[in-house]
């Protein structure tokens, strides 16, 4: 689900990371929906070689997914045709601006080695275990054998924590009910410069993307299955499965399996591709947002409890946008809290009262999950209402934006409309206590599409003077509006960034040359003039401001788009 400026931002990110040619390919896919190879070439006006290499890069980085569709022949006797289509996965493209955040997150949990491993995967998109080991060795200037065990250990930790996963199938079939109809609906779409924030086509397209992703995804059990050679290192599902078959008759099979496993191990390390599992990173950040919200709205104690609950049930979540966590009994919660570093000394009473506090607040951070659990299961169970928390956060963010952008009175009117539904201008003026200014304020909000107005004709001739005008704030529309503005602002930050760099190209190149010479060991005879030094200082300060602003802005984009 990308808005108009979301699409622009996608193209922009690709342009910065992979250059103009790849961008043209992405632009076609983003604006026109899934396309076959020939069509990409036609629309992008690029040669097939260029398209091919672009697509390979994009697939490597999970920005594009291929899928096959079987078309019926032109006539009943004609053979069926199989066509491969390519679809852009805009979510994954957006994730590219979050890489720094992912790295920070993984370092927090697993230290620097893990960070470097993930960094490698982010840089190359997909790698085999063998390649990962090679890369680490090269970086540390050591032999592969020296680092292999250490890498494998880190690798296992990351797979177990689900931060990395096996890559999806490269070209799945899409043969659920009539995909062609969906495709024909989106494929004809020309690029839309302006228009509604989210068109019907966007929604259809996002449906296609979801289905393709689902078709390509490995089975949940395989997704985080360690390479065979390392199965013993982690708690893999396959272990327990094998232990069950211990009958004598099975024994031979097991031996054969072991033989197989040796070869399989080699194949596994050399051929199975791994990539970063963005979902898990998102989940972690989403949890963090929930915990932070509770910390500011309630207190630290409550946030420790909530954090422990989320941790304990994390593995049971099936989607990033999970509404509720799996219910946890009071005992379960206590155990979970005591097993976290922050909560290990928390007295039972304190935990109980925090749970009460979380459950009784009007946002409903957690709720009792059905009395039916009964005392047998340790009394009441509670689950975290992540959805409620995220919604509350979004609401407060929207209101903050309205407040700062349009002022206190506009914000009051906006909140009034969100609460009351529809009102006439006069009523709004009275209830928001702004009878003089209400008209100007409403038109200001209308212009920026934060409120809507509807004419209800009292006469059949639609005489405007006699009509009633009802104002309302459609919250869903506002959410999309805000999201689009966020994308727009992010695009502008990126463009300005590129522009500033371009302006100072000369000096920056000079700096690079000097650095290179220094590295080569020659004394730098040439130094920068003081003016040039100023320039370098300025550009590094500016790019830093822009970078930091983009990362912060992206936190809000995550809140509105991914959580």
């Amino acid at each position, binding site marked *: 689900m990308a808005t108009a400026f979301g699409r*622009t931002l996608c193209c922009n990110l690709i342009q910065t990371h992979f250059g103009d040619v790849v961008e043209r390919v992405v632009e076609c896919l983003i604006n026109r929906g899934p396309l076959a190879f020939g069509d990409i070439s036609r629309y992008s006006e690029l040669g097939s070689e260029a398209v091919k290499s672009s697509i390979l890069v994009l697939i490597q980085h999970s920005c594009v997914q291929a899928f096959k569709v079987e078309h019926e022949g032109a006539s009943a006797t004609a053979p069926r045709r199989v066509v491969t289509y390519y679809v852009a996965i805009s979510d994954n493209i957006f994730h590219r601006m979050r890489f720094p955040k992912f790295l920070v997150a993984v370092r927090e949990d697993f230290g620097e080695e893990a960070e470097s491993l993930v960094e490698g995967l982010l840089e190359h998109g997909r790698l085999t275990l063998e390649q990962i080991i090679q890369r680490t060795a090269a970086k540390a200037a050591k032999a592969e054998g020296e680092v292999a065990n250490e890498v494998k250990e880190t690798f296992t930790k990351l797979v177990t924590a689900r931060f990395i996963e096996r890559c999806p199938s490269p070209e799945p079939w899409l043969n659920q009910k009539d995909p062609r109809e969906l495709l024909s609906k989106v494929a004809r779409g020309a690029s839309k410069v302006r228009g509604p924030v989210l068109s019907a086509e966007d929604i259809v397209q996002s449906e296609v993307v979801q289905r393709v992703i689902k078709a390509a995804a490995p089975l949940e059990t395989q997704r985080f299955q360690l390479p065979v050679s390392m199965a013993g290192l982690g708690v893999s599902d396959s272990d327990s499965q094998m232990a069950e078959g211990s009958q004598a008759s099975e024994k031979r099979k097991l031996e054969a399996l072991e033989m197989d496993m040796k070869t399989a191990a080699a194949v596994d390390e050399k051929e199975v591709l791994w990539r970063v599992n963005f979902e898990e990173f998102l989940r972690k950040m989403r949890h963090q947002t929930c915990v932070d919200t509770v910390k*500011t*709205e309630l207190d630290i104690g409550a946030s420790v409890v909530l954090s422990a609950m989320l941790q304990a049930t994390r593995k049971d979540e099936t989607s990033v946008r999970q509404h509720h966590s799996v219910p946890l009994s009071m005992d379960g919660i206590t155990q979970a809290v005591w097993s976290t570093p922050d909560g290990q000394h928390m007295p039972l009473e304190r935990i109980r009262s925090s749970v009460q506090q979380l459950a009784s607040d009007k946002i409903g951070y957690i709720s009792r999950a059905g009395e039916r659990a009964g005392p047998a299961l340790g009394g009441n169970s509670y689950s975290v209402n992540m959805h409620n928390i995220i919604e509350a956060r979004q609401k*407060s*963010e929207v*209101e*903050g*934006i309205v*407040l*700062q*952008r349009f002022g*206190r009175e506009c*914000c*009051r009117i906006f*909140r*009034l409309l969100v*609460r009351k539904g529809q009102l006439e201008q006069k009523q709004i003026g*009275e*209830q*928001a*206590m*702004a*009878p*003089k200014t209400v008209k100007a304020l409403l038109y200001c909000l209308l212009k*920026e599409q934060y409120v809507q107005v509807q004419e209800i004709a009292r006469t059949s001739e639609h005489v405007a003077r006699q009509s009633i005008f009802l104002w309302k704030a459609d919250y869903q529309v506002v959410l999309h509006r*805000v999201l689009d*503005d*966020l994308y*727009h*602002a992010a*695009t*502008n*930050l990126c*463009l*300005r960034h590129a*522009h*500033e760099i371009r302006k100072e190209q000369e000096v920056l190149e000079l700096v690079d040359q000097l650095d290179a010479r220094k590295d080569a060991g020659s004394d730098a005879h040439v130094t920068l003039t003081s003016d040039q030094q100023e320039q370098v200082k300025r550009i590094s300060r*500016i790019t830093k*401001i*822009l970078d930091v*602003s983009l990362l*912060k*802005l992206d*936190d*809000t984009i995550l809140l509105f788009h991914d959580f």
Partner: protein
Amino acid sequence: MASGLAQTINKVLDLCRAHADGLPQKVLDEEIPDLELLSQAINFLLSKQKLVVFTQGDNIVYKEQNTEVAVKFKGLTSEDMLVYQSIEAAANQGIWTADLKRRTNLQQPQINKALKNLEGRSLVKAVKTVTNKNRKVYMLFELTPSREVTGGAWYTEQDYDAEFVDVVKQQCLQFITKQGLADLQAIADAIRKSGITQVELGLEEFKQIMDTLVLDGDVDETMGGETYSSDTVCYRVAKSRIPETSALTNIPCGICPVLRECQPGGLISPETCVYFDQWLSF
């Protein structure tokens, strides 16, 4: 003849007194069959402001003007009286000149003249309305304009007094902050006692203020608590305020007036944007 007229006049007045709530034309016609005499008598009385004419439904009724009132209206023309009556009927809502014209069927100059006369004698007054500032309505001099006309307590001289509203809001907020929890009555009592205003504020007005404070995110509404019963609406300072900063509005584009017109490579574009120049230059 003259004595006949005098007799008739007295008879009319007697009849008026007998029918204090209005003497119908029908009764007059029955009692004084001489139409010629009757009309002369009535014209005489009307010209002397001793008699007033009303319509009650389809009937015409007469009343004797009491002496005090008679003095008040002495020398006014019948047109003036017609205008006066229309204004009187509008009560404290007042009436606009266009409506006066329609009611009385008089021409604008006649109405203007009548209004001038009436205003000169302090019988009626012109009042500005809040709904339309350039429009004046007329009402009897002694009446207090209705809330629709003045706008209520928040209006000073027909002008919405935003400053006054702000002062009262601040006072209410301060009181709640000090008090922790308070219901409407307690707030109203405290503000009235504080004497910050001479204006009479009713509970209704205080409710309006509190609703606004809730909408501003400054206070929260809760049911009961402390000494209040659980069905009393109470107010306390809001737990979480509307955020004062956000990532979006911290960068120029977030508060940019031309955000919608700004397109990459367009007339207004991020590359050439002056807001960015300023933001990045300090």
